């Protein structure tokens, strides 16, 4: 299933994807597998590992782009409590399907990354929280875990080092909010996925109120190559402060959608036109959502934005989960805004007023608006409601719903105006929204 590799790719994390039996430990071992672990255990100290990570400029791939080395350094290693490593494999941000490949084709790389986190913070137990829909991945992961136990890479006295580590998979059961770190921990404790009051942050009081490292699948998977090749090598693959490569998910109206590993800072134009083969039907590009459905939309003139955290932020959006969603000229922006809001209304956990009520209200108003019942003042209302949510909700899901909405209205006000009172959606007459 991984898309046809592109010549533009720089394959660090995904370099084993095409190999026969790539998920097996033998393939892994034959291709540098568990060398990082060995190095970390035998040649390095927790501090020197942390140092490499800091030098690497690795930033979290789950969405927020927080420097990983710094996150790990927050864990009070002296704490007498057990420490936990939790891998966020909830992958539910619309547009995103990269962690899935990392688990399907190279589960040992992930396991190795988690083990190294364990070494750094002195943890002996970890969980991989996999979204419920990815059941087949649980089977793949469990098989990989079994192999790793059998070969002495997990369990007691790993590689004779005296280091113990147990790792388990854990399934979710359908909830985007459980990708939010504190809600995930609640869910992992068997409860409704309602976020927690912070502080304390998971690094200090996470799973079972114990210090916890929580990272995305891709983040953990990036660690072994960094340890093997050095932080400096990794950093130089990307741009300043944005080290390495990442898996970009290219979807929407492009000729070759797929998951591609590219250096941080790759220009958007290159991704869409060179890697993705351009827009289907060679239509005009209208808009791009650069980092998953929660990130503000960019207009076509942002096409030269380099895809790294800082540059995309400068362009007024976020690199988020690296999910680039491309929309061509026939796309109805109001419809896109509506569909995204429908998602957030469905996924709001309902705990806090602004998100629960705001997403619902917006969904209803956008629905009416899109079906031709819109009035002038609704446009302002939509923007205003989203702004009223922004920064005031209990967890970032509210922001994730508000930010794209504000951007849609501000950048495509004309399209909203085209939908006013009694008008059918002007884009429906183009009939086909389906490309390719």
């Amino acid at each position, binding site marked *: 299933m991984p898309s046809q590799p592109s010549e533009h790719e720089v394959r660090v994390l995904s370099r084993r994807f095409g190999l026969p039996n790539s998920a097996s430990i033998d393939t892994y071992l034959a291709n540098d597998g568990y060398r990082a672990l060995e190095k970390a255990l035998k040649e390095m100290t927790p501090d020197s590992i942390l140092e490499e990570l800091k030098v690497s400029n690795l930033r979290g791939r789950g969405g927020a782009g927080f420097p990983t080395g710094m996150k790990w350094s927050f864990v009070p290693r002296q704490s007498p409590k057990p420490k936990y490593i939790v891998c966020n494999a909830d992958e539910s941000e619309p547009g995103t399907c990269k962690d899935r490949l990392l688990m399907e084709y190279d589960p040992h790389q992930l396991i190795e990354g988690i083990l190294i986190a364990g070494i750094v913070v002195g943890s002996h137990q970890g969980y991989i929280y996999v979204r419920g829909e990815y059941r087949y991945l649980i089977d793949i992961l469990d098989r990989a875990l079994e192999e790793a136990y059998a070969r002495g890479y997990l369990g007691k006295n790993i590689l004779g080092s005296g280091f113990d580590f147990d790792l388990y998979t854990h399934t979710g059961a359908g909830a985007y909010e459980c990708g939010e770190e504190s809600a995930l921990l609640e869910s992992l404790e068997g409860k409704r996925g309602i976020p927690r*009051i912070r502080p304390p942050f998971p690094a200090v009081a996470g799973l079972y109120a114990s210090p916890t490292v929580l990272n995305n699948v891709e983040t953990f998977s990036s660690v072994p190559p960094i340890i093997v090749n050095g932080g400096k090598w990794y950093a130089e693959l990307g741009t300043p402060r944005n080290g390495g490569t990442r898996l970009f998910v290219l979807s929407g109206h492009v000729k070759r959608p797929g998951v591609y590993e590219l250096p941080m800072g790759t220009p958007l134009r290159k991704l869409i036109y060179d890697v993705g083969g351009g827009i289907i039907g060679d239509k005009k590009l209208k808009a791009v959502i650069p980092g998953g459905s929660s990130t503000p939309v960019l207009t076509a003139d942002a096409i030269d934005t380099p895809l790294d955290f800082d540059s995309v932020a400068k362009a007024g959006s976020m690199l988020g989960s690296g999910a680039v969603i491309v929309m061509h000229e026939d796309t109805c922006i109001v419809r896109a805004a509506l569909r995204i809001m429908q998602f957030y209304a469905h996924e709001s956990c309902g705990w806090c007023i602004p998100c*629960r009520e705001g997403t619902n209200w917006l969904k209803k108003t956008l629905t009416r608006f899109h079906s031709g019942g819109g009035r002038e003042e609704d446009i302002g209302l939509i923007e205003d409601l989203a702004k*009223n949510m922004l920064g005031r909700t209990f967890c970032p899901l509210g922001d994730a719903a508000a930010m794209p909405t504000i951007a849609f209205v501000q950048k495509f006000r004309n399209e909203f105006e085209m939908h006013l009172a009694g008008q059918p959606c002007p884009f429906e007459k183009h009939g086909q929204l389906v490309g390719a």
Partner: protein
Amino acid sequence: MADNFKFNVDGRELQAKPGTLLIDACRAAGIEVPAFCYYPGLSLQAACRMCLVEIEKTPKLQTACTTPVAEGMIVRTSTPIVVDARRAMLELLLANHPLDCPVCDKGGECELQDMVFRYGAAESRFREEKRHVDEQQWSPVVYYDAPRCILCYRCVRVCGEGMDVWALGVVNRGARSEIAPNHGDHLDCEECGMCIDICPVGALTSGAYRYRARPWEIKYVSTICTHCGDGCKTTLSVRNGKILRGNNRDHSGINGEFLCIKGRYGYDFIENPNRIRTPLIRKDGKLVEASWEQAIQTIAAKWKEILHRRETGTQEAQAFGVIGSNHTTNEENYILQKFARTVLKTNNIDHHRTVDYAALIRAIANAIAKPVGDSAARPASDFLARSKDLSIASAVLVIGGNPTDQHPLLAWNIREGCRLNGTRLYVINSRRIPLARKTFRFLPIAEGGEQNALEFLRGERDAEKRLQGATPGGREVTAEFLNDFRDKLGQEKDLIVLFEAALSGECVAQLVEWGSRLPGRTRFIAQGDYSNSRGAADMGLLPNALPGYASVEDNDARLRFENAWSTTVPAEPGMPLHDMLAAAAQGKLESLYVIGANPLKGWDTAASLGGCFVVVQDLFLTETALVADVVLPAASAYEKSGTVTNTCGELQKLSKGMEVMGTRADLDIFSRLAGALGVTQAPLKSEEVLEEIRKLVSGYGVPLVNIVAGGAELVAPLDGFQPVSATHTANVKSSRDTLFTSGTLGRYSSSLQAVPERTTRTEPDPA
């Protein structure tokens, strides 16, 4: 202790202890911070986002309800951004909220309405269809209207954290989230209604009150619940002479916001159709209606005749027996015993004793008189605890009983202490009572093993042996566990001990003696059953004790009362309750006067009271009233004023809520009877009686300011005579009422009868 933090709110320099939440610090300084989900004493939610404030150096608005104050923090609570955030939150809330305030039970006392009034957003920009869900009835007393619910989770928390019942939860997610009861479509719980009380809006409403009134048409009367011995303050909502609702509206009084089902709904016995509304006289073997005049004259004629025969010495049998009430006021009890002792000239007066208060008071007097070792004498307040002290004491020991069911307020306070103040709770019980879930140490004992447990505490080896081994509940009690239990307890420096009927007489003395050997202060609460059982004992409804436990045989004591009353009092102790009944059955008692009590319940020789002239004064035709010669319809506690003393000894004031046609207050009946016998009963008015009590009854000379203002004063009848120990302590028996029963009153309360838990709530498992 750490220094206070200094910080600045809206330009004012404030100080607070580290750990104080910003919202509390602001409120303490009179700075308003709105909140729905924050509720002092319950866990933090950060859900409603009403309390957002600006804090310098933080980019986003912060919730004041979860932010602890910090040194140098600069906070702003009324900038345009904050004001706008509040308004926006309300607008969002109102979007799906039905705008049916005019028909909502909460209309006029709704926190949402208030907030909208204060912070704006009255005009809705919401044009979409609102979500509709039908109202649900969860129990005879609890209704839920989901669209009105703002999901503040207060109800869930008060039921779980406060009541330890956990009958409410949240189901679904997002906009479909709602509160759900523990049994699918209905509740199985304690039916306390705390969830309704705490609901800021009209989402949870009470079956009793719904749609019956608008809050502004109502007169509010604060009085004391007439059911158990805890003495909760309850505010009656009265309209046109009818009580519509009971709640503790302003959360004042000893119980704060707490009420159990009886205090909240159990007032409804007053309008039960079986209520006696006219006097009854036995004619040709049948009770027939009569006028008050006829009834009073009938009684007076008979009693005059008995009195006359006694004066003329032609009488052999005991003349009179008087059985008083655990529900009547202190003033009534005081006047009743005065009437018995001075007019009927008898000490044959008693009441259903549900715990041995007399023994406790005497034991404390002894402990004060003879301090352990060379320690200084301690004041009475070192031995008696107020109900609220249970929430702050560092340790509580519960011996026997089941406070959750029999003393709901005391149990609530104990749980609060465990939850918020780390109170160490020790429980000694033969059952896994609900409080066992909160214990620091639980000692399982055999059924009826309380005395043995006391002996063990006092260091008896044999008693300790008897506690060891397997318990009926399948636990194993080891010597180590026992030692640890006693050691830990023995180190407690601020302990409150609760006991009930299982320990009486000499056991109580031993308990107090044991307690006074502990290193710190040990206080006691004797748990008696009804609303004024402590008052009945304090006021001398005892055959050997005058008010304040002064012995009738003590000349000085007697003289003091005789002087005050300008008459004589018999010096011979009278018969206790069971002896009176036996005497009547054997034809050795000429007349029995029973006030607000039902001694014949469960007594199979009813018919044999035959020869005795029985007068019963009550609300209902009880088993005793059915065999009476004259029945007088009395008013309940909700229909009169006066004072009552709760089981801890807290003196509080009743206020009259309404009247039931045809009935009279007991105090009133006493003076009419006295009048008919040719005696002027003085004083007449309840307030004047209280003045006399304050002068004459040991411990009752407390200041009234607090009481009049709806508060309480702890009385300790320890400042007068050497208290007399009660006799016949074998007769001390708990009524074993549950959460849903309340003696006679409970039988006639339709809400208590209606809740299914009345029959389904089972006794706790063996320990």
